[in-house]
């Protein structure tokens, strides 16, 4: 037991590397919030654009959403990070992670919001247009609020799944929690920093997981 504690919860190592892990938490939180905001808004904008039913535009939106959902983010991160400098575009690690994860989330969010739009009864659209509101106003004041409410539970799960992927940043040298902890682990020769990383992630994402569960219960699942 003592050996276990000394390996995974060494107090001296904890004291030494707490500042680095806290700094990592800051970067993780900033990245996660930025990805969530950018991805959700872009996804919503694309889904709204898709309701206008302009064929060539919809073709690209659907292709974007499909590709974004089919490709593993780590593949794109490596491709952008190592591939673009070859043609003279050099992006920093955090920037690459932000762009790739935001686009990935946007692809999923577009699909979720679109499912929300199509779940709102056809009568709602017809009534809005029949009362003379016009398409844009019907969309923004009648359909959108209902669609967003429907989209919240599945969207929360996606946001959780994708914002915690900021850990992939450690692969391209971003000093977020995992990056900081991995560096600390090889410096200290102890597993304790990895335990600290796990706890740091739990501190950030466990509340989000609980919130997602709450949202699911609030807007209960029906089939």
């Amino acid at each position, binding site marked *: 037991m003592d050996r276990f504690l000394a390996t995974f919860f060494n107090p001296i190592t904890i004291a030494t590397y707490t500042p680095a892990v806290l700094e990592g938490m800051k970067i993780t939180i900033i990245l996660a919030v930025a990805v969530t905001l950018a991805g959700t808004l872009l996804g919503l904008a694309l889904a709204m654009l898709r309701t206008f039913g302009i064929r060539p535009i919809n073709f690209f939106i659907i292709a974007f959403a499909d590709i974004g959902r089919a490709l*593993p*983010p780590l593949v794109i991160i490596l491709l952008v990070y190592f*591939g673009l400098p070859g043609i003279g575009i050099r992006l920093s690690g955090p920037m690459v992670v932000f762009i790739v994860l935001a686009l990935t989330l946007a692809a999923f969010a577009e699909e979720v919001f679109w499912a929300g739009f199509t*779940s709102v009864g056809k009568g709602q659209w017809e009534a809005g247009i029949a009362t003379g509101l016009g398409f844009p106003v019907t969309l923004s004041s009648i359909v959108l609020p209902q669609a967003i409410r*429907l989209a919240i539970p599945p969207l929360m799960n996606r946001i959780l799944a994708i914002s915690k992927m900021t850990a992939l940043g450690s692969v391209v040298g971003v000093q977020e929690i995992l990056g900081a902890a991995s560096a600390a682990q090889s410096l200290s020769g102890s597993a304790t920093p990895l335990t600290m990383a796990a706890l740091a992630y739990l501190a950030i*994402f466990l509340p989000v997981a609980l919130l997602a569960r709450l949202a699911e219960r609030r807007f209960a699942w029906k089939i």
Partner: protein
Amino acid sequence: MDAFLQQFFNIDILMEAMPLLMRGLWITAQLCVAVVGLGLVGGLFVALASISQRRWLKYPAIIYVDIFRALPPLVLLVFVYSGLPFAGLNLTPFAAVVVAFLLNNSSYYGEVYRAGLQSVPNGQREAARASGLSETQTLIHVILPQAIRNVLPDLLSNTIEVVKLTSLASVVSLAELLYTANMARSITYNATPLVAAALIYLALLWPLVRLVSRYQRPLAI
């Protein structure tokens, strides 16, 4: 434009890297079978525990799901691969990936199954029990078939996520598709192998993504 093609769509380099990528793809396939299979089975047990009447089973299962939903899979993987050896537990990269993803996937699949199990009306269970089926028979022959059918699109969509997740194995030097592609990139100083890997993932997963969108049921109102 020419530089772009040279860097991302170089046929010569693609031909050179292809045998390596195919070997990686084979490892990815093995990994997928192991990880998806174990996740599907493990998730079922997690789900059954989480809807159990027994509190000592139910609450630990719920906490298990929430913890592994909050931990990034890469963190789990690094912990299992580089952390556990400190406790004298050395795993091969393949075993480390399987263990780490079993923890992660069983909680995700568990949530999907749970939604499915809860979607089966209680009358089904009561009727089965009243007609003399045992609790286990009821579960296997009456509840599970309906539960799984109800969440088939979600099981599929989660499986897509699991397949994508196997690319993380490259971080612990398991020579799967992404690892071999990235190795080829660093040898050739050219991004074409990574583009090829992306296209392979796309070819495998796009049809499944389409299928998920096709069977997307309306969201609950």
